[in-house]
């Protein structure tokens, strides 16, 4: 019966018992790496969007080039360049740092575009009202524009954050010991794909709360116009 072979292959209790602790280790590495990427990526993205809103042409030009390049490049390529090519120009980094940096740049590029779209979507009258009360450009941005813009950007940003955290799986290529690394090496060692099932479970445990949290944030910060 095919069903028994399915259970034996993907839901094998003996194999699961042998490898679940490795998956837990990978879970923490993925969580840690994901949080680090989100922290840096969103900060850089927001800083770039704010810088772009000052309409200083040379700066805006460089920001657009950065955003377009890192949105176009496959994250895997960026990781491999950082890890394997940068040592030749005297910039060696470990696998974790290379993955963190590469994914942070990619997230920053997407986040910049999302924040920028959010800033643009706020009517010009909001800035004018703020500036007419004596606020500087930065004060108007921080107190009036960004609080409104950020709310609009929460749904697309959440999707990006989830996508980029799943992208940490690419770190397995340079041997970052995250979920997929443990799952696939466990699977080949055991000759049985059950560790991959455990890995999938780990991703569900990681992301379902994130999705629920983002829904909560959306309603929490929603305000009626």
């Amino acid at each position, binding site marked *: 019966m095919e069903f028994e072979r399915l259970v034996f292959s993907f839901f094998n209790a003996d194999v699961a018992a042998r490898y679940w602790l490795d998956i837990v280790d990978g879970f923490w590495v993925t969580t840690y790496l994901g949080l680090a990427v989100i922290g840096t990526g969103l900060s850089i993205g927001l800083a770039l969007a704010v810088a772009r809103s000052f309409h200083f042409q040379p700066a805006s030009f460089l920001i657009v080039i950065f955003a377009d390049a890192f949105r176009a490049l496959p994250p895997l390529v960026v990781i491999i360049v950082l890890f394997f090519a940068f040592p030749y120009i005297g910039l060696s980094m470990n696998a974790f740092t290379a993955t963190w940096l590469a994914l942070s740049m990619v997230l920053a590029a997407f986040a910049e575009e999302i924040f920028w779209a959010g800033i643009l979507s706020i009517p010009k009258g909001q800035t*004018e*009202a703020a500036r*007419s*009360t*004596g606020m500087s450009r930065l*004060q108007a941005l921080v107190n009036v524009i960004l609080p409104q813009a950020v709310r609009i950007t929460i749904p697309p940003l959440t999707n990006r954050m989830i996508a980029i955290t799943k992208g940490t799986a690419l770190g397995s290529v340079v041997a970052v010991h995250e979920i997929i690394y443990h799952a696939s090496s466990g699977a080949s060692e055991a000759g049985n794909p059950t560790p991959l099932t455990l890995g999938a479970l780990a991703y569900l445990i990681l992301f379902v709360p994130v999705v629920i949290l983002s829904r909560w944030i959306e309603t929490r910060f929603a*305000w009626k*116009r």
Partner: protein
Amino acid sequence: MPGKPILQVIGLHKSFGSLEVLKGIDLSVTKGELVFIIGPSGSGKSTLLRCCNRLEEPTRGSVIVDGSDITRHDVDVNRIRQKIGMVFQSFNLYPHMNALGNVTLALRKVQGMPRPDADAKGMAALTRVGLADKAKAWPNELSGGQQQRVAIARALALEPLIVMFDEPTSALDPELVGSVLNVMRELRESGMTMVVVSHEMAFARAAADRVVFMDGGAILEQGPPEKLFSNPEHARVGEFVAQISHHH
């Protein structure tokens, strides 16, 4: 007794690209005066107001507020703007803050006033526009007229020397116009200096000290409302007044 000028506009030009919107405006507004600016759309009324607090940068000429030329590039425009209140056609309240938050934001963030002091001052401003009971209301919970009065309170909280009104009632349903005009009338009686771009002719007739008629980026004629409305020197003014009054 003629008061001292609060606002002096001298030889003001403004171009957007090759389009010259203001072609040499001279205007002086004295303390406590209510000056009404009327004219066909595209005549540069709003641009004139917006040049007076540098929401638009004048191309040429000077704007002198309380003795200092705000068009000079070494002037602190953020400090000057607190002294020039601005009320917009579309209110432009901050939707993420309640009425009191809207009124106190600049007090707290620009003037660095502690929240209790700012709240007290904000409540005083809201009381002045008759909306003390709406302090905790969100902009979307207020009628257009109430929103515009909150916007007026937001300008008043900074204790401006002069308040500019850019078509303050144009976006309002007719039945809500009166409440805003009443607030403006009370402001005028309290001695506030005001420049108003509006088509509310009845209000201009009743409350304005002077009416300025703009056409094609220049001031064509100015004078007391009874003179301008009943016996203007230029036929163009009479036609415009007749047209507007007919439609209202």
